[in-house]
């Protein structure tokens, strides 16, 4: 590998290809800073002035900070509780796979991966609204429960590779099952916890369909849902719309710029399990 020279042909092709990805983002940033007047001219041009007026107006119009708070609230609690509960459930199943009930449970959670959400959507929404769960807490609970399906699968694969002797040693020292999990197993699961946390936070932050069908109160709208709600108002003012889109995308992009190495390797680990 090292003896080969850098392939400039491939590098050039990949750079050209990457423009296809970066171009829509370039357009988003420049339009977010332009005035409606500038929209009549060349769309590729840079804005004449870099004023934040569009952003201020979009913040006010969409109540951006409220939506941001909702998205952050949901994502934070979903990630924390998904990692803690799903790993625990996976551990219980992984260490009892020889028993019928746990084996059934494993395949039960797994098989749910093949059931597309639209199939359970209609009855689920009726049920959750009847139970007063048509709010952010209900949304959090549903994400945590639904996440079990995929997470049990990747956690168990990993737990199986942890030698059982470690736990036996801890039990000999007088630790309870509970203590063994939190003191021995959970720390050992760190790489998988990171993977699950990354995939879960991306899912919760960007999801549109579940908030759309579940939340009844506009005040509770998450960032993607807000863009949808304001679409009709946006259609008359693209600069405002793009300022709003950019603000909704920015938090994830900023996290990504600093943590892309971990995010990519985390997703990679989750996908090859």
């Amino acid at each position, binding site marked *: 590998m090292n003896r080969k020279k850098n392939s400039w042909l491939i590098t050039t092709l990949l750079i050209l290809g990457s423009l296809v990805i970066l171009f829509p983002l370039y357009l988003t940033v420049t339009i977010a800073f332009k005035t409606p007047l500038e929209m009549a001219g060349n769309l590729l041009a840079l804005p004449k002035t870099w004023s934040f007026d569009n952003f201020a107006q979009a913040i006010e119009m969409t109540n951006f900070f409220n939506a941001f708070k909702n998205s952050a609230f949901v994502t934070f609690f979903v990630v924390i509780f998904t990692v803690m509960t799903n790993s625990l459930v996976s551990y219980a199943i992984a260490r009892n796979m020889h028993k019928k009930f746990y084996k059934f449970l494993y395949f039960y959670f797994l098989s749910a991966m093949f059931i597309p959400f*639209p199939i359970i959507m209609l009855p689920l929404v009726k049920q959750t609204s009847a139970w007063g769960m048509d709010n952010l807490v209900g949304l959090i609970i549903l994400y945590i429960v639904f996440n079990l399906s995929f997470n049990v699968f990747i956690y168990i694969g990993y737990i199986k590779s942890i030698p059982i002797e470690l736990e036996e040693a801890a039990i000999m020292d007088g630790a309870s*099952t509970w203590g063994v999990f939190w003191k021995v197993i959970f720390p050992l699961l760190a790489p998988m916890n990171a993977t699950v946390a990354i995939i879960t936070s991306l899912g919760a932050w960007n999801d549109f369909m579940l908030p759309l069908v579940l939340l009844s109160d506009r005040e509770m709208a998450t960032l993607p849902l807000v863009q949808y709600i304001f679409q009709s108002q946006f259609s008359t003012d693209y600069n405002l719309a793009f300022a709003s889109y950019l603000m909704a995308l920015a938090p994830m992009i900023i996290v990504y710029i600093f943590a*892309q190495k971990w995010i990519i390797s985390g997703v990679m680990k989750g996908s090859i399990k």
Partner: protein
Amino acid sequence: MKKKNNVFLVIAIPAFILFFIFHSYPALQGIFYSFTDWKGYGDWNFVGLKNYLNVFKDGRAGDAYVFTFKFAMVSTILVNIISLAVAIGLNSKIKFHKTLRAIYFLPYILSILIVGFIFNFIFAHFLPQIGDALGWEFLSRNILGNPDLAWIGIVVVAVWQAVSFNTILYLAGLVTISEDLYEAASIDGAGVWTKFWRITFPLIAPFFTINMVLSLKNFLMVFDQIVALTGGGPGKSTESISLLIYRGGFEGGEFAYQSANAVIYFIVIIIFSVIQLKFLNKREVENG
């Protein structure tokens, strides 16, 4: 030992109950109501298989199935060709390796809905401006406004986004292939093309299978992209099955009818996944 058992049950049983309540129970309810005439409110009666028969006779549902499958198959094939090519590129000896990898993965972290809105603008305003400037007739009109072409716009957005994840999966497969194999093949005089079909492709066949099945399944559920780009239009030309269930079920008072549609949709997805797995596994064995 007995005590340990109890702790595990205390963990496993609530998980089972919660999952049943929020996942299996709604699914069973959906199946139950699919045999009734419930509108989502008020009284209902059993109607037997009437809903199912009506779905098969319903032109709107038929069109949604045709559109969804056309979209999903074209997108699946394009995504897999492009992401395999990108992954091979990223896996070769290149400059700016880390930066390029980060850029190609970027779409994965973005909200599909918002990406859809951005592309909506590109199709509606940017491309026509370019088309006018260059005098290219086919670009000067918004393709999302054309019932025959709007689906292509949705494919573009779906592929733009999905390539990121599939590239990472292929990359994970490619790094496991030893460089020695390629060197040995070079000594035997194998060209780039031969090396790809004889070494690369057979060795990443399991990743190819997973990618094909996952992409097809995801694309069959297409929803966000359509809401952002066309809202199912023009007319009903880009109405996917998910969108039809959502619209009919929540807005059209067709709770029972769309439940029957959802059951059929589920069966179709299972059948497709099984056929695809069988077919691709067979290929893997033949190649391997």
